[in-house]
């Protein structure tokens, strides 16, 4: 009874117990738990390399048992762990979800997948600052990945904008390479871990501009300076720098699911610790979920919890 125009997508013709969308720490942890539970499942990842945001993390020092591991190495280990347990991966980009518990349909531009339950672990990506010059100078001095681009600023002066763990880790890494690093933070204290703060401030070339924000990024073909505004005094100051590293938080990759599952006003999917969203049978895990602390370990924990919830729901079918 399928009309021609309805079946333009190639249907995979298989009903999985579970489809996991995304392959960062939450997705890989879910894959490990789902494989051990012997569920009939697949992970759909949009990039050819698993790991998500941690692929751009130089050093991770808060994942228990693996002090100082690089993000790439941890991603490789997690993926290898899931592979060893027999998890299957498909590279595709899901554009939409529809259906109800026991019968969800996930569509990409070319294929249609069916699953009884779904775990969304699409994570988040770096947020933009929205300051003058940010787009113009992207790749010409403005960067969102210190580990990727730090080497191009060897012996140069740079600023890091932000005050959380990511900003501090970036600033520490850059202080080893650059002539000087200035952290620009909008408050008079930092959010990031105390150990990271101590590490940063122990570097000779580490500076900080408290209660300040970027007013503009300036230059001709490349960045030559930034103008910062002191939020208390209103005073403007120009700092001659070649590099501007922006680490002002993240935004969730949830646009495809907005309207289908309930999200908060910033786009994070609303789900409790068990991962259950507003739609029965759809679970959210990792950075895409609304929660207080976004870390690799909380993402991995979310993945485990979500699979436990999936198993419970599957017994109802």
């Amino acid at each position: 009874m399928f009309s021609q125009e309805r079946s333009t997508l190639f249907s995979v013709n298989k009903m999985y117990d579970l489809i996991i969308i995304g392959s960062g720490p939450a997705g890989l942890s879910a894959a490990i738990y789902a494989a051990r539970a012997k569920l009939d499942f697949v992970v759909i990842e949009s990039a050819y390399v698993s790991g998500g945001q941690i692929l751009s993390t130089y050093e991770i020092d808060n994942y228990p048992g693996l002090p100082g591991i690089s993000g790439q190495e941890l991603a490789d280990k997690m993926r290898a762990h899931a592979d060893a347990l027999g998890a299957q991966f498909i590279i595709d980009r899901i554009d939409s979800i529809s259906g109800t518990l026991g019968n969800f349909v996930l569509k990409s531009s070319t294929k249609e997948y069916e699953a009884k339950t779904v775990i969304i672990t699409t994570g988040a990506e770096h947020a933009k600052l929205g300051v003058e010059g940010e787009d113009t100078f992207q790749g010409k001095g403005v960067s969102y990945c210190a580990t990727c681009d730090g080497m191009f600023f060897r012996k140069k002066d740079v600023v890091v904008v932000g005050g959380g763990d990511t900003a501090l880790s970036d600033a520490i890494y850059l202080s080893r390479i650059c002539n000087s690093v200035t952290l620009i933070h909008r408050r008079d204290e930092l959010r990031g871990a105390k150990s990271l703060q101590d590490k940063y401030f122990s570097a000779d070339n580490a500076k900080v501009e408290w209660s300040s924000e970027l007013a503009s990024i300036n230059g001709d073909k490349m960045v030559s300076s930034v103008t910062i505004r002191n939020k208390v005094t209103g005073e403007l100051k120009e700092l001659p720098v070649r590099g501007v590293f922006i680490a002002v938080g993240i935004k969730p990759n949830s646009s495809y699911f907005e309207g289908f599952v309930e999200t908060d006003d910033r786009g994070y999917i609303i789900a409790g610790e068990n991962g259950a969203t507003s739609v029965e049978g759809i679970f959210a895990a990792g950075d895409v979920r609304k929660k207080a602390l976004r870390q690799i370990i909380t993402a991995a924990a979310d993945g485990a919890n979500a699979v436990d919830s999936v198993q419970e729901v599957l017994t109802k079918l």
Partner: protein
Amino acid sequence: MVTIINSDNFEEKVLKSDKTVLVDFFATWCGPCKMMAPVLDKVSDDPKYADKFEIVKIDVDDAEEIAMEYGIMSIPNMKFFKGGSVVDEIIGYVPEDVLTGKIDSVLGE
């Protein structure tokens, strides 16, 4: 597969090529570059581009002068060369459909 070039054959393979050449400036320590590599490999094997287009990559650690000459400050950085000069570029990881869209527009299709 994408051919890896270096500073010795950059002129011959890129500047003097009669094809449009996409040069991927990458580094072994860059996560997004690792994500980009299989996408580039796949697209470079597409027979539809064989006659008029080629993808090569160059390690910025091995070719520091060339990276500097072309103002590379963020990787992955993919520059389109036509007749020896840069006509377009992509900065940062992009998925396959964005890459092929850009290639088609540069090739004028």
